[in-house]
């Protein structure tokens, strides 16, 4: 392998690996901006990885599998909102419970439906969309112009979410709910409805991310396969300073770490895999400690709101 190939390969795999994390991180960002902290992203992604595989297996269509995963994740989002918004339960604890639930239920369902069999959905995999000509550009050609459609969707969602949050009336309403729900309430905004909406849409994005991880990247479900990607997404939102573009750059950086870690053995490096995988988390801690400028979360994030 020459250097250009390695670089090109790295970039291609970076964007691919970034996609599930980016989708989940955008979901988390939307929830965060409405005042909801969802530690349970990992669990929701994990459930989605399984639902997507099962859905694809039974419908023979990977898109329908993804839709199933998004629907289930959306329901979990509504459930999260019911507990934390309507019943004002502690968001962190509910999130932790969702993670435990994700580990348990994805395994239980897998054993129930497929026993010990290994199910591959490779035959239904997403088709790559290659743009003739452009895909042959060295280094970036394959990465930018010969990817699966979900990769394009994820990265196109970045400007879409950005526009939504900062340029539309409903985006302003959403941010105001995350900053000061009482003020939003006095201006006639239904705080609960906003947060329910953010939770459902946000979790659907996590579902999409989980689905792409199993059906897009690995073509199968394995127990605990998300391997902390939900927490990386959480880290990316903070490291990206609660802005869509920042979140995107953070996910690309973190995914690059994963891509490099996977590449290390093949180029004969002795740097241990586990040391490299720590990097995103350590970087996030450094960011939280304020060494890379101030990170200001939405003022009402994590706090329950009581109407009236």
């Amino acid at each position, binding site marked *: 392998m020459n250097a250009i190939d390695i670089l090109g390969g790295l970039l291609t795999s970076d964007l691919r690996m970034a996609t599930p994390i980016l989708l989940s991180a955008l979901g988390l960002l939307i929830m965060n901006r409405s005042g909801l902290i969802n530690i349970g992203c990992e669990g929701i992604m994990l459930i989605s990885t399984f639902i997507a595989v099962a859905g694809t297996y039974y419908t023979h269509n990977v898109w329908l599998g993804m839709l199933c995963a998004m629907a289930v994740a959306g329901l979990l989002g509504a459930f999260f909102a019911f507990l934390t918004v309507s019943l004002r339960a502690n968001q962190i604890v509910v999130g932790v419970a969702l993670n435990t639930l994700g580990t348990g239920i994805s395994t239980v369902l897998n054993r129930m439906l497929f026993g010990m069999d290994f199910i591959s959905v490779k035959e239904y995999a997403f088709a790559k969309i290659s743009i003739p000509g452009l895909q042959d550009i060295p280094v970036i050609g394959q990465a930018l112009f010969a990817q699966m459609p979900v990769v394009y969707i994820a990265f196109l969602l970045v400007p879409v979410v950005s526009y939504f949050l900062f340029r539309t009336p409903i985006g302003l309403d959403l941010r105001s709910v995350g900053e000061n729900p009482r003020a939003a309430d006095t201006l006639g905004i239904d705080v609960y409805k906003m947060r329910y909406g953010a939770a459902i849409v946000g979790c659907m994005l996590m579902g999409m991310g989980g689905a792409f991880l199993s059906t897009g990247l690995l073509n199968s479900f394995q127990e605990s396969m998300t391997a902390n990607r939900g927490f990386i997404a959480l880290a990316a939102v903070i490291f990206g300073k609660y802005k869509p573009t920042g979140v995107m750059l953070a996910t690309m950086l973190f995914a690059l770490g994963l891509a490099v870690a996977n590449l290390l053995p093949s180029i004969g490096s002795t740097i241990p895999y586990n040391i490299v995988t720590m990097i995103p988390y350590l970087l996030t801690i450094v960011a*939280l*400690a304020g060494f890379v400028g101030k990170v200001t979360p939405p003022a009402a994030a994590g706090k329950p709101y009581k109407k009236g």
Partner: protein
Amino acid sequence: MQKFDRIKFRSNMSSAARQISVSLMAVVVALIISMLVIAAMGVDPMKAMSKMLSGALGSKNAIAETLVKMTPLLFTGMSYALANRCGLTNIGMEGQLYVGALTATIAGVYIPGLPMIVHLPLTMLAGFLGGAIWGGIVGVLKVRFGANEIITTVMLNTVATNLVQYMVNGPITEPPGDDAQSSPLLDSASLPIILKGTRAHLGILIALLFVVLFYLFLWKSKKGYEIRVSGQNPNAAIYSGINTGRNIILVMLIAGGLSGLAGATEVMGVQGRLFPSVSPGYGFDGIAVSLIGANTAPGIVAGAFLFGILRAGGNSMQRATGVPVAIISVIQAVVILMVVATGFLREGGFKRKKAAKRQNVQEGGVSQ
């Protein structure tokens, strides 16, 4: 004043009774939901439950298994509860447990020639310190840099599991390094068995001793009072001259140390050496234990007992009925969700508030 004392007695009773009844209710509902899930899998839920109970309590061996599972849960439950009493959300117990297991392993494997009376406490101490460092980092980051402890603990959990994986695959791997595991701990650093012919080890007694200390510390000591004030109202703590920053660091050190002891007792009493998956999630279970126990000492014992039963009985249930042991995670999650979902019942002494507000009105003030 005599009359007042009677009222106090009643209101205290009703508060404790409410706590217990709400917790019990949450657990019962969670079990019913879980049985429905088991029924949906085509298994007789009564059979599954009875298998679980007999696996956890049905014999000397079963009870010993429950005690074994309870031990780390008591420690992580106290860890979460202590931090929570100080107003902190420590969800880094899992990571603190891993680091505690790692440091205990190092002390238990690489310090030869000591008598047990020295080596055993030393290894425990190493485990405590490992966890304390991991927790202390969180405290320092919060006090010095204002970094939110929820996020830093989440991040440090993953760092810790990766650290342990790295260590057992590299620096402390058992020669020649074929398996991802450490060398076995020396006998002088292994917790003795307290029930002959079972796996029940001294760790459970040590854990229960710590529960007593936990109670004395929080409710009878001046430092414990400071910590509770800091947790309930940090502004009031600062106003009265309490050094809240120092207390946060202290609490995170102790909480981390308690989780570290969970890891230490696991390697010293159960597993005998360090594996990359030393804990099946005891750290996160600690949240549930503490929630059910409402951050109180007896409550934590009850919560750890419940989850000990689930963990110990899960395997026999799987063997007898084919219900995967992962269902235990589902049950735990449902228990946690039920407990937090009923939180408003727990604190929502509607009647109490009503009485107080009525008093307000009588005095010419309406609280708004």
